[in-house]
């Protein structure tokens, strides 16, 4: 035959490559489907819940997984298509991109610099300058009036900008034309982090004030301390009156062998009143272990999520009365997993808690708690739907709870 070379290579290629992709499209689901198995409460509470994490089959490398009531989706880390439609985009950012595509253009996947209410969508971030001229810090402020669709945008230099190595916006608040931007920044050559509140008059496009409210690390004669910001949720619609920090105080202790090490002696809750500009420090009760990454500030309440002997615990602490308002224990959040801990998220007045880790022997628990009442509205487990689809040694690590 005259063209045997071209014909044979073409046929072999089409058959082998075609068969491979048809087969992989059909057998797409090599990975197990996860479901939420309800133990008590109302199934509706987890309808909009979206868990993200990594799934490890036996001897396989991790796959990104997204678990929802509607199904389980896997995505490959370095797939090109994931770059186009990233699975990790925050659902709130996704919604904003859909509704205000023009306004959201060029803004990163980070909700911290956004503030939203019924009338306004505000964006206030610190721009770090270009690659050629970096650390040229400027405030980049844009206010979208939702009804008219009009955007007011202006840029202002950060005062004393040459002092800092980096500046992150942690939170944005807006009330009565006054914009408050809460930032964390590091001071050059001093290994020192600071928290600032910048106030702006939006209509005059002017900076009103720059207040240093806390330093991350402080040293004294007996030891040192560090301060972490408690993230605040402004989904409740009302403006937050406070900014809150957990300050961990450590003391230098001499060990038996003469070596000196630091020992944690106390945890303080430091609050800053945005209206009166007053700071207040109170020691946290012993029941609260004070891990700032598992705490959320809403209004005058700080909610601490933590592991305890009995399971997962949610403690509501009132800043005004300086007392614990309620203490809720969820025993299904298995305590065998102390090493891995809990993951939590507050969304629209509800707290979502889940075990970080699941495998065949220990199914991770999920719980949803109404913050106002402390009532547990949902309790359940993360289960593999069909056990045959998962190898016995599978592991599931969650890294994010999202609510759509």
């Amino acid at each position: 035959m005259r063209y045997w070379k071209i014909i044979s290579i073409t046929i072999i290629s089409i058959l082998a490559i075609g068969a491979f992709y048809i087969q992989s499209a059909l057998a797409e689901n090599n990975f197990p489907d996860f479901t939420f198995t309800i133990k008590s409460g109302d199934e509706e509470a987890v309808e909009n819940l979206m868990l993200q994490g990594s799934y490890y089959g036996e001897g396989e490398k991790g796959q990104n997984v997204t678990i929802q009531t509607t199904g389980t989706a896997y995505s490959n880390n370095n797939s090109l298509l994931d770059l186009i439609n990233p699975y990790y985009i925050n659902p709130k950012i996704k919604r904003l991109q859909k509704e205000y595509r023009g306004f959201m253009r060029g803004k990163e996947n980070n909700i911290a610099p956004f503030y939203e209410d019924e009338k306004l969508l505000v964006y206030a971030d610190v721009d770090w300058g270009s690659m050629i001229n970096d650390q040229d810090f400027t405030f980049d402020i844009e206010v979208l009036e939702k009804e008219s669709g009009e955007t007011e945008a202006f840029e202002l230099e950060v005062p004393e900008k040459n002092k800092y190595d980096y500046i992150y916006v942690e939170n944005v608040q807006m009330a009565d034309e006054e914009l408050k931007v809460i930032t964390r920044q590091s001071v050059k050559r001093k290994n020192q982090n600071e928290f600032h509140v910048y106030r702006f008059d939006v209509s005059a496009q002017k900076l009103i004030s720059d207040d240093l409210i806390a330093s991350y690390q402080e040293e004294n004669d007996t030891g040192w301390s560090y301060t972490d910001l408690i993230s605040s949720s402004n989904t409740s619609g009302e403006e937050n009156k406070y900014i809150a920090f957990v300050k961990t105080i450590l003391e230098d202790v001499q060990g038996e062998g003469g070596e000196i090490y630091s020992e944690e002696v106390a945890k303080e809750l430091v609050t800053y009143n945005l209206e009166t500009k007053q700071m207040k420090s109170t020691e946290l009760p012993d029941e609260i272990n004070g891990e700032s990454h598992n705490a959320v500030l809403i209004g005058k309440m700080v909610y601490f999520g933590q592991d305890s002997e009995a399971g997962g615990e949610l403690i509501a602490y009132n800043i005004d009365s300086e007392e614990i308002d309620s203490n809720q224990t969820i025993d299904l959040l298995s305590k065998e997993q102390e090493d891995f801990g809990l993951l939590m998220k507050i969304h629209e007045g509800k707290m979502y808690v889940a075990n970080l880790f699941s495998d065949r022997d220990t199914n991770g628990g999920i719980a949803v708690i109404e913050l106002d009442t402390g009532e547990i509205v949902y309790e359940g487990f993360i289960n593999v739907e069909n056990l045959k689809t998962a190898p016995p040694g599978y592991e599931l690590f969650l890294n994010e709870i999202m609510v759509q």
Partner: protein
Amino acid sequence: MTRFLKLVNFELGRFMKIYLALIGITIISQIAGVIIKSNSYISRANEAIYEDLVPKEEFFATEGLMSVLQVTRSLWFMGPIALCIAALIFYIFFIWYRDWFGKNTFIYRLLMLPTARIQIFLSKGVSILLMVFGFVAIQLMLLPIESVILKWIVPLDYRIDMTAGEIIQNSYLQTLIPSTFIEFVLYYGAGIMAVFIIFTAILFERSFRLKGVLLGAIFVGMTVLVFFSPILIMEIMQTYYLYPIEIFILEIILGLMLISVSIWTSHFLLKKKIAV
């Protein structure tokens, strides 16, 4: 059309002996790799469990279970793949220069053919592409065979069976064989673009000799700059103005545009400037 097919068939024929030899080396080396790695795993397991009396679980915990993945990480497996890639990269250049420096300046006869000269260019491109796909196909057919051989040697308790897809996703093969067909088209589409651009640079050199080397280098540099311009501009300005989907579409348009520019430039060079 039949003339074009004839040209492609002819180009394939000229490399066929080496091509088949490369396929042979790949098959032999990879299968030998499976046999050697499996046997050495089994003998290590026997030594540990029956002579040193290490508990089975402990052995698995340190060594892991045997699978084709252990082979894919070895030189037996990756070596021939690297060799094939190197051979094809070499052939991207050789496919042109052999026509000038071969026994009887073959390019004369090619350029004398009563077909459009761009067909010479395209037939060489298609040949390279077909040979690449041929290698990919051979690898895809080899994976299940290697799994079967591993099953013959390693007992059930000591191994994890994997499908071709699982093996690919967990090894370096992932870069050559992406997990979805769309990505396959995109990856190899970008590959065709690169081959065409290099071809054009070669034709610059063949047309203007020493000066052409510079022109070719400038051409390649410009295409790289144009192709990555959306990303470069955004990185330099540090403003990510476009949404990912928009960059993606823009890149596809730029890629298609560069392929056309490359073909058109080559067409011009072959017709007007080429020196024999």
